[in-house]
């Protein structure tokens, strides 16, 4: 699975996710990536793209939950990402990347690693795996 989340200079957030799914999967299986609110979500507060065990991400509507705890609990982006990774996945293994309308960027995962990269306008740039 691959994904990208962006907030532009006008504060507009967007998210996109694309995948081949699971190796040796049954034909006809649909995972979390195309399900809006599960693998992908964007609103005026943030943009989120998820990857990992699709079935766990679907059950937890992981991407929408990041926006929901920001909207209803007033958490900031990093707090929201930490909260959903720690409290919404049950036994599932997953990761996500997110941006906020304020130009923040965050990622969280409970797997051994996640291929990820991020950059902000002030020059910060990071590419990581573990």
């Amino acid at each position, binding site marked *: 699975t691959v994904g990208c989340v962006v907030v532009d200079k006008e504060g507009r957030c967007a998210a996109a*996710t694309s995948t*081949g*799914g699971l190796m040796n999967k049954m034909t006809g299986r649909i995972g979390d990536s195309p399900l809006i609110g599960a693998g992908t979500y964007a609103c005026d507060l943030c943009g989120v793209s998820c990857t990992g065990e699709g079935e766990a991400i679907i059950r937890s509507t992981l991407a929408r939950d990041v926006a929901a705890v920001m909207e209803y609990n007033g958490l900031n982006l990093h707090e929201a990402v930490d909260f959903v990774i720690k409290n919404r996945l049950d036994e599932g293994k997953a990761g996500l*990347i997110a941006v*906020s309308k304020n*130009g923040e960027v965050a990622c969280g995962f409970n797997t051994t690693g996640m291929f990820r990269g991020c950059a902000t306008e002030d020059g910060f740039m990071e590419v990581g795996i573990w």
Partner: protein
Amino acid sequence: MGPWAIAVHGGAGVDPNLPKERQEEAKRLLTRCLDIGIVALRSNVTAIDVVELVVKELETDPLFNSGRGSALTENGTVEMEASIMDGPKRRCGAVSGLTTVKNPVSLARLVMDKSPHSFLAFSGAEEFARKQGVELVDNEYFITEDNVGMLKLAKEANSILFDYRIPTIGTCGAGATMDSPLQMNGLPISVYAPE
């Protein structure tokens, strides 16, 4: 308004024993995709266009599990899915079960912009792709030697393959200890790997 920001990912559930050169290869691709996004953002390209641009690049490179280089189904074919969402008006588009569309994320964008729906799948999505004139290729284009080998391993182990290795029950992380009765493909759900 405010500063721009961008993040990309190439999947979670990485094999702890991933060879160093594979790690460097992944980092180079992620850096290249960030650079594409940064140049676009500096040129005032909108967020929705940047996410589509970057994911297309990730789909085209065979390194990660999407587009060319996608994981294979039990039949050794590729079935791809993608979605895209624009924050300001929460517009969205999604596709599933694609077998010939070169860049699934661009078809998802067309579902958002050019159809009255949010989600098209399988033959309906392929029909929409033909009508929209997006680039179509044979299913073989998406299949790589690496993944043919990994599917073989997965079948021998009668399991769902992690991106980089066959899970032995002990290595399925927290899920491994879970004796969940839930089965999928005739296997305990816990052997399902992060994608």
